[in-house]
């Protein structure tokens, strides 16, 4: 019985770690603080950090060398993403991990030549525009419309929950080009600069402090050359991108568990013999097992990608496990802390550095973002078990 992790992968990880350890501490600390406050969009320091990684040749680990990558396997890509998660540093997020790989599979030669070098340079940040006020889980009912006008499309509509809309350079936009009743067979996908005339972005602040946005599209003109895939065939790229999106998680729950361990150590509970200590140890023991399972769900996906397969039900399982575990660690971690747990993050008195409380507030989106867990369960039943729809 062999895992796909061999000596090459281990030495890659060691090399990456020593590279990251050698980075300017100021850059690392400010990036980490920014990323902990809101990990869903690289901002001032995150952008600086990613450009540094790009300059040093560390972005695009699994990207083919022809696109400026290191040409390694998806396993190394996964190791890279997780090592950065583990340090709470941005790993290129959706732009590098989702949009880039999807473009490689579905973009034209011109599109690849245009975007991939700039993605791997850390120049571009994409925001994703699928959801709308009336199209959440039922994404195929989206109404934002793109009408062909010569060499261009004219787009009108409203998007909701466009995370990073205010910091992004580009928009990965799903719009209706076919009939409403054609559902997913009438959707096309476009790339448009975020500052294109007719785009208005307004902020939405969530309870955990993460920002997202509403995006209004008012006669936005997009050249037809910026359509990804054929007209009305954007769904394939969306599905592909969503499967990539559901794959890259595992180290955040491990990190949150460590925050709880820090608190428990200070309190003398980590190794104590009291009833409270026992209660904590039992709880943490089970979380620690679940963290190891989380690692393996992600590894399974990475090894499938490395084999040239796209994980579908496996990606769904990964995403469900990861999100629910994270939420559980934050929630039950606070239970172990008790009264003091009510002190909000930001206060120097917030236990576990405030990370569990912050995490708990952010946690709802982990269960429904990237397709809700209920939809993921359906996908496992369909794709994994062959249940009828």
């Amino acid at each position: 019985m062999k895992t796909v992790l061999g000596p090459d992968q281990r030495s890659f990880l060691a090399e990456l770690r020593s590279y990251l350890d050698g980075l300017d501490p100021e850059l690392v600390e400010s990036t980490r603080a920014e990323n902990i406050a809101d990990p869903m969009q690289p901002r001032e320091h995150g952008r600086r950090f990613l450009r540094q990684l790009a300059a040093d040749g560390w972005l695009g680990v699994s990207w083919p060398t022809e696109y400026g990558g290191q040409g390694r396997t998806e396993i190394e890509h996964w190791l890279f993403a997780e090592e950065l998660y583990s340090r709470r540093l941005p790993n290129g997020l959706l732009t590098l991990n989702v949009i880039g790989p999807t473009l490689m599979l579905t973009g034209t030669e011109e599109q690849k030549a245009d975007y991939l070098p700039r993605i791997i340079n850390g120049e571009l940040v994409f925001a994703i525009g699928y959801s709308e006020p009336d199209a959440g889980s039922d994404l195929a009912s989206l109404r934002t419309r793109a009408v062909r006008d010569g060499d261009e499309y004219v787009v009108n509509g409203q998007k909701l929950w466009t995370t990073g809309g205010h910091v992004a350079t580009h928009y990965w936009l799903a719009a209706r080009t076919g009939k409403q009743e054609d559902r997913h067979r009438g959707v096309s996908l476009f790339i448009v600069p975020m500052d294109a005339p007719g785009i208005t972005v307004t902020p939405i602040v969530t309870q955990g402090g993460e920002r997202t946005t509403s995006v209004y599209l008012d006669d936005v003109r997009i050249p037809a050359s910026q359509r990804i895939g054929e007209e009305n065939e954007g769904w394939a790229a969306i599905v592909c991108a969503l499967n990539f999106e559901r794959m890259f998680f595992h180290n955040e729950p491990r990190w949150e568990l460590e925050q709880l361990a820090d608190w428990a150590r200070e309190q003398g509970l980590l190794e104590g013999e009291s009833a409270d200590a026992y209660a904590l140890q039992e709880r943490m023991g089970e979380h620690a097992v679940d963290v190891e399972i989380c690692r393996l769900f992600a590894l399974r996906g990475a090894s499938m990608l490395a084999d040239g397969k796209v994980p579908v039900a496996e990606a769904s399982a990964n995403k469900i496990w990861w999100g629910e575990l994270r939420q559980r660690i934050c929630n039950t971690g606070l239970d172990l802390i008790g009264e003091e747990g009510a002190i909000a993050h930001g206060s120097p008195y917030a236990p576990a550095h405030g990370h569990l409380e912050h995490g708990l507030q952010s946690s709802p989106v982990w269960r429904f973002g990237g397709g809700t867990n209920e939809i993921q369960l359906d996908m496992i039943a369909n794709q994994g078990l062959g249940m009828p729809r």
Partner: protein
Amino acid sequence: MTAFTLSEEETQVQATARAFLRDFVDNTYLNEQEESPTGFEASRWGRMRDLGWSSVHLPARVGGADGTLVDAALITRECGRAAYASPLLQTLRSATVLDAIAADKTYDDVLAGIVGGAIATLVAPPDRTVMAESVADGFALSGPPVVVEWLAQAEWVVLVLPTVERGWLGAVVTADSFGERAVDVPSIDNERMVRLDLDGMVLPSEAVRTTDLSAEDAAYALARADLLRASAMVGGAQDVVERSATYALERHQFGQPLGKFQAVRHHLARMVIAADGAQLLCDDALNRALPGAQETAVARAALFAAGRSYMDVVLTAAQVHGGVGTTVEHVLHHHFRRAKAMQLRSGRRSSRLRELHQGLVVRREAVEGSLW
């Protein structure tokens, strides 16, 4: 789908085991064996010996096939799938422990006996409730009674126990050494069990072949042995998931297959996640459980996860199957009972979890192998 690939030989071991069991094991057979005086068929045991099942991972020196723990675990996984009860798991666990704690050829006679078809069983209470104390003519044992599978059918009984003085001991006695201390008790599953009262018994010096075994080495030897049980539970969980999915396609209510109802679909998907998680962790632990690797923490994690998942899936499977799943005419009832019994044989949940906390969180034992 797993993150681990089997070698050609391993695939062969798995396929052979599955085919062998499929040939005769079904619910009727399992029911008959459960009601029989011995609980298993000696002739089948002979066949399994001939196939080399109980010695697949033992060194060639004693006549074994020189395979790995993975080979043994693939066989117990198939037994678990089939819900097949026999002294095999206990014999394999005993052999695994002896092979691990042997200095040189300490236990070669016993191991050679196992290769030849002898049944062995293991006494190593998971909650370490029995202690040994050095006395003039051996080691005196104390502690509450324990339960041991297949002791009445065994030739050899292997004991691995902590001592009061220091370190652990390893001992081998013949099964008739216990007299009235061993009492047959009914098990909730189809395996056989005795209640063994060791309190006040003295293990004679000549039976105690290993002393001063470090706690770490004892723990790792037992954790490796327990991976064979974890693997059996993984196999059981997989069979339950597959049967439930098949049933959800066959059974119709309200004019449609059960698998169309979202409540049922979600039950099934949760079962897949539970079984997959257990398998991934078990395979990871097996992959890492090389002799001397001291990967105790992850092996224990795998044991815990396997028990939890097997139990989770049988509870849900019973729901998905409705009435038919609860009758003795359905193999699910074997899985249901085996899941709980096998989980309980790992001892108290709270003790296991605190142990896992110590290993994974406090000592961060699995860090190297887990990468983070």
